[in-house]
């Protein structure tokens, strides 16, 4: 955070919208293993692309070598409720939730999928996903004999009920993160009372692996009206009344202090089929990261979570072997408003300006000055571990102010007496926006301004409340400066999170997802309008051929990375996700995403 007052730099994470209705059908037939949508009406045999796998993970946990004791995990910030993962802002805010609930599938630290309450990850290749006309059938094979913490069976009844529960109109009052997205495309589910469920989708739903995450118990949900669920179920003063599926059950919650967990005996006996490595788990909350670091030094905690590059300097006194740093999927970027630039300078002028900006940004200087060298400058929005990452792209283009200047001159920009470039009677003076409570972003914009000033480009930096930057179309005045939805900005800095689902880019970069148009729900804040990009995004969204998806994403990445394409988004750097872990701890795999670092807590153990 959450900012979060207790965190010096919390994420301003914007999760890609995971879904939108699929567009035109794909020419390809049903094919290989994919988390994306099989969309074709044809039913040809699948073909597996060599080297593309969604489940081939590097994660190989070592066997538990010691059992017993209390695991203490430090976190900066207190989740508001157990419901946070379902009813709160972020799609995968794990913290208090991950130890207590499992979903049907989950992601590893290298963005692969693995089964949790199921025996396999359904794909086209293994027959788990079968296109059927305009829709598709998804087969969920749940673990036979798996039980909830109260001994009730985990089976298709829970899948079916949760589908209906998500669709309940009363959910609208609660701000359910998933909402009805995906569930509304389901026509029926077979397999009640069994562990093999067949979900009949009325139309293709590409990110089907994001559904039922987590899976909630039908028999427990039925005890409350949907509208009152946050007041009646999993109440933080009666946690032991709840029903859980994960490895550890919360038993007590002292807000802003800690949550206590005990092993879920049913999980260990019916799902994991082993003994728990710990007798108890405590999640201890710290008000800020500095205090958490001090607590780790004092051995108050075994693992410290939710750090990033901004706290690395404060960890200088800690044994480097205890500081685990990985490249995170969150990346800081500058979104330029192409519509605003085009209006000022025309198509050619706007394109030239964007080309020049790509070369004018000195990302190494940003890294050094703003983050103290703690991050990795980047030029690609795709996480390197993603299966669709284009390894053939080569290194990022280099900073070249001279080239930038020549591009601008060739386009007809001329400097006025005030030193600012002008074209078509319009000055290259821009409004640069960021959240006022993220000082490092304001500093970055000012630094970039200093880099652009010699070229004759000026950025007037303005900090505004977060609510102003991201407010929806009807939630804020049309003229509110720095609002991305209304396009009242020239450049804005915030962070995106790269997700494992390539289709999630659809709503962010498709030309028709300009929030100024239609129902204003689109997130194409940069107002990019590129036919090649639209074609690539549509292919990703509507095909199951992994090779075609990979090719389409490669096209997209080239458009994004090559300055010649004048893409109006400039990636600055990937965040570094940092964990503190005691040298005695085993099987801790920092997965890059700071909100799900307890993803494999069932495998953690502590040596003597």
């Amino acid at each position, binding site marked *: 955070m959450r900012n*979060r*007052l*207790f965190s010096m730099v919390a994420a*301003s*994470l*914007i*999760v*890609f*919208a*995971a879904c939108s209705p699929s567009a035109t059908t794909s020419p390809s037939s049903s094919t290989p293993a994919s988390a994306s949508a099989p969309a074709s009406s044809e039913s040809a045999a699948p073909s597996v692309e060599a080297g593309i796998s969604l489940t081939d993970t590097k994660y190989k946990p070592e066997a538990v070598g010691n059992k017993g004791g*209390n695991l203490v995990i430090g976190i900066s910030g207190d989740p*508001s*409720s157990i*419901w946070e993962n379902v009813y*709160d*802002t*972020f799609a995968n805010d794990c913290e208090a939730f991950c130890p207590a609930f499992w979903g049907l599938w989950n992601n590893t630290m290298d963005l692969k999928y693995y089964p949790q309450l199921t025996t396999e990850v359904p794909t086209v290749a293994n027959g788990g996903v079968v296109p059927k006309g305009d829709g598709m059938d998804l087969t969920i094979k749940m673990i036979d004999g798996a039980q909830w913490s109260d001994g009730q069976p985990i089976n298709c009844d829970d899948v079916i009920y949760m589908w209906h529960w998500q669709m309940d109109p009363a959910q*609208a*009052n609660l*701000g359910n*993160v998933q*909402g009805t*997205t995906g569930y509304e495309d389901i026509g029926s589910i077979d397999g009640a009372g069994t562990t093999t469920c067949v979900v009949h989708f009325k139309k293709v739903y590409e990110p089907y692996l994001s559904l039922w995450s987590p899976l909630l118990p039908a028999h427990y949900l039925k005890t409350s009206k949907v509208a009152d669920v946050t*007041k009646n179920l999993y*109440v*933080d*003063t009666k946690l032991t009344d709840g029903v859980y599926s994960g490895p550890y059950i919360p038993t*007590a919650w*002292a*807000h*802003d*202090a*800690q949550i206590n967990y005990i092993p879920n005996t049913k999980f260990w006996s019916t799902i994991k089929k082993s003994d728990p490595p710990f007798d108890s788990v405590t999640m*201890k*909350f*710290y*008000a*800020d990261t*500095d*205090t*958490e*670091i*001090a*607590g780790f*030094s*004092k051995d*108050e*905690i075994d693992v410290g979570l939710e750090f990033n590059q901004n706290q690395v300097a404060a960890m200088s*006194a800690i044994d480097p072997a205890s500081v685990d740093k990985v490249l995170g999927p969150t990346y800081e970027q500058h979104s330029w408003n192409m519509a605003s630039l085009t209006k000022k300078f025309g198509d050619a002028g706007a394109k030239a300006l964007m080309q020049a900006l790509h070369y004018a940004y000195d990302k190494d200087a940003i890294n050094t000055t703003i983050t103290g060298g703690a991050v990795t400058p980047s030029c690609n929005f795709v996480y390197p571990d993603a299966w669709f990452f284009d390894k053939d792209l080569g290194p990022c283009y280099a900073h070249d102010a001279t080239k930038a200047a020549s591009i601008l001159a060739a386009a007809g920009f001329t400097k006025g007496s005030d030193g600012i470039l002008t074209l078509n009677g319009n000055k290259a003076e821009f409004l640069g926006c960021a959240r006022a409570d993220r000082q490092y972003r304001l500093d970055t914009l000012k630094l970039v301004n200093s880099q652009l000033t010699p070229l004759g480009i000026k950025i007037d930096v303005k900090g505004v*409340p*977060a*609510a*102003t930057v*991201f407010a*929806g179309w*009807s*939630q804020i005045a049309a003229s509110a400066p720095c609002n991305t939805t209304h396009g009242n900005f020239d450049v804005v800095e915030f962070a995106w999170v790269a997700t494992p689902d390539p289709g999630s880019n659809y*709503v962010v970069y498709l030309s028709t997802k300009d929030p100024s148009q239609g129902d204003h*729900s689109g*997130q194409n804040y940069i107002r990019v309008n590129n036919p090649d990009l639209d074609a690539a995004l549509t292919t990703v969204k509507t095909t199951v051929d992994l090779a075609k998806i990979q090719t389409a994403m490669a096209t997209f990445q080239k458009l994004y990375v090559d300055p010649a394409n004048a893409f109006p988004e400039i990636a600055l750097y990937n965040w570094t996700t940092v964990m503190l872990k005691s040298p005695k701890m085993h099987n801790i795999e920092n997965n890059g995403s700071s909100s799900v670092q307890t993803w494999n807590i069932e495998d953690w153990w502590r040596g003597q």
Partner: protein
Amino acid sequence: MSRYIIRRLIGTIPTLFIVSLLIYAIMQAAPGGPEQKFDQNPKITPEQIAAFRHSWGLDQPIPVQYCRWVGLCNPDGQGLGVFISNNGLPNFLPSFLGGGTNGVLHGDLGYSSTSGSTVISLIAQRVLPTAILAGISLLVWILLALATGILAAVRQYGKADTAITVFNYVGFSFPTFWLGLMLILIFSQDLKILPASGMWNARTVPIFGSTEYWTFFGKNPGGALLDLGSHLILPVVTLVFVNIAGDSRFVRAAMIDSLNQDFVRTARAKGVPERTVIFRHALRNALLPVVTNVAIELPFLFAGAIATETIFSWPGMGLAYITAVRTYDYPVLMGILVITAIFVVIANLLADILYAVVDPRISYG
């Protein structure tokens, strides 16, 4: 005196009403609201946000929201019927008399918009930790303020006076959050002799206030107190260091004024020992403004020290308040602010009463 107290108590009602109205108005005027948490969630539609606002009554006019919160209005009522309870009687009446059940007047402070817990239960969890931290800090700094203030007054313009003055101004100038962080870095991270934060050792001690904690306390009171004490040291030092200046200077000024009075000169002329002159004659009279000043500081016992509790993750009212601000949890914010306002009003009344108790020349009759 009793008529005065009753008159003052009656006078607190409109005061509290106006205070609560002002707080509510300011909170509503500030940007943001409970629906702010959905801002960064692309899956939430405007219709869902509107439904959320409707379910929490946030789409109602502010006067209506306030009226419901106070308990004058029935949330189920329409038109003029909003003032009538479901039992057909004025909603402000107690529920056992047929009035409503909602609102402050009926002891209902609502539910937290983030956790779903009742505001009262949330506040109840936090009061004791704040009372412990604030109470001990208040006691320590008052005693130290008395001691340093007396010494500074008796040794006016001497080395002791100068040293105490410098100490007070340095302490007063330190930002609380900075001092707290420095103490953590030095004593927890570097020297590793004191806990970094929290109120108890998460590895060995149950959650404070839980049944398990009191069982633990019963079996090992020394260990429990030692653990609590070790966690109190740094936050108490922080609070004392920053807050002692004001009271110390106050005591010094009051003592200097008292020591220059004729009755003190007379006592000395009579050969009364200097210690007796200072502690029995001068201090007794100097305590008058000090006592009233301390009484005004009593609401601190409830409201807590926001910065200190935040830095040290002390699970008290101050931290609850800042969490509620961060998450736009209006019901919790209103609950904390209004109860704090009640404490302030009562503390002022107590100060006035103590004034009369300490100085027999003062009468409110």
